[in-house]
């Protein structure tokens, strides 16, 4: 199995995700090759909580151009993790 911290890359902290925290839902960027089960296990082992469900979305990188060269930002995977209602809230310190 992959290491937990290789699966979970970073928390996404924005206005929207802070609002979602009230519903016990936390949003992360995760490794694109990982699946929902891996995310669930990783979160449980890092934060010591129980995960109720995981939803994932593949986010396509935006096309960007530099003059005549067309490039593309990397694709990434977003995971919305819902914790069980009895688990403690997560604290993120890197802001």
């Amino acid at each position, binding site marked *: 199995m992959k290491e937990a911290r290789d699966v979970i890359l970073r928390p996404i902290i*924005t*206005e929207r995700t802070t609002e979602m925290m009230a519903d016990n839902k936390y949003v992360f960027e995760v490794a694109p090759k990982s699946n929902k089960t891996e995310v669930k296990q990783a979160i449980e082992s890092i934060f010591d909580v129980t995960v109720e469900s995981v939803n994932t979305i593949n986010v396509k990188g935006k096309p960007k151009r530099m003059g005549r060269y067309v490039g593309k930002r990397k694709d990434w995977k977003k995971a919305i993790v819902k914790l069980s209602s009895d688990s403690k809230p997560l604290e993120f310190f890197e802001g």
Partner: protein
Amino acid sequence: MKANWEKLENNTGILTIEVEPEQVNEAIDQAFKKAVKKVNIPGFRKGKVPRKIFEARFGVESLYQDAFDLMFPVVYGQAVSETGINPVDRPEVDLEQIGKDQNWVIKATVTVKPEVALGDYKGIEIESKDFAVTEEDIENELKTMQERSAELNVVEDGSVENGDYAIIDFEGFVDGEAFEGGAGENYNLEIGSNTFIPGFEEQVIGMKKDEEKDIVVTFPENYHAENLAGKEATFKVKLNEIKRKNLPELDDEFAKDVSEFETLEELKVDIKNKLEKKAEEDKENYQRQAVIEKVAANATIDIPEIMIEHEVDHMMKDFEQRLLSQGINLDLYYQFSGLDEEQLRGQMKEDATGRVRNSLTLEAISKAENVEVTDEEVDEEINNLAEMYRRSADEIRQIFAAQDQLEGLKNDIRIRKTIDLLVESSKAVA
């Protein structure tokens, strides 16, 4: 909030203020609300950053300074009124203890109004001064009126006399050479005004219209231009015109011209009344000033330096205003008076000390004598002011209320009443 006042020497003391965490947190909340509008965190619009994220990123300590600034004026005001002290300056503040969910302890070093040890202030003896209006005063007044309405007449024949205006062209030579500033055309010289070098005006006397004459004078030893001082100079002078002051006769006709009165006698009576009124005012001013000075001199006060400094600041501002109304600014004033700010302040210092001393003394007396100001007296004062500024009384009252000055007005009246009291009890001695 708890406050404790500890008195030290020289009218200073330490005010210790202890603020409970609830009040501190309230202040921090307010500070956060302010600060959050300014921070930029990716993922959030301005002002939408949650408190938690803000604190995680910047630390709650970053809010302390703002919170303190918000809180301090409030608690300081409370502490001052609680301990009943009279600060005269902004306090020097030291934060003794701060922290989350702790009492904050603030130490403020404060200079307070000094205590006044009053000396004698009742039955003060003041030298009486004569302010009576004499016949001579009236004559003098009439004479100035006469001068003011004098006409200048051109004298065609005849020669220059003392008191005339001579319109002259002149050019001066020293050792046969013209010198700078030694020439002028159509210069209006009043004979006897001593505007020119001594001896010059005297030699113009007796000249006739269109006459040309060489005038020889010696520059005085202390003349301001060094290269000319003590030298002999020859002025070629041409007299263009003579103007003579024509003083009007002092008669009823004159009275009609310069005033609304029909006869000279009436005018004189009016002048006398005016002078007497002025003398009355002068006398009152003199008495008040004399009493205040004596009483202040009798009192013992240890005036804090800072109060004097404040007064000097005040005077400087006043002075600058006055200069500005004459179209001069301070820099220009410094230039031609040869003083710098330091020196000017030094000059004002003595005056300022006197003023502070006077006002402190009067305040202490008004307290000792329980001088009270009633609302009616305030009303009366406002009515007076309204009349002076041609506004309605309500308007004036609003202006004062808007600037929180009603209390100040009351104080002014209190001080005035105190002075009245002092003057009443004083004795005039020859």
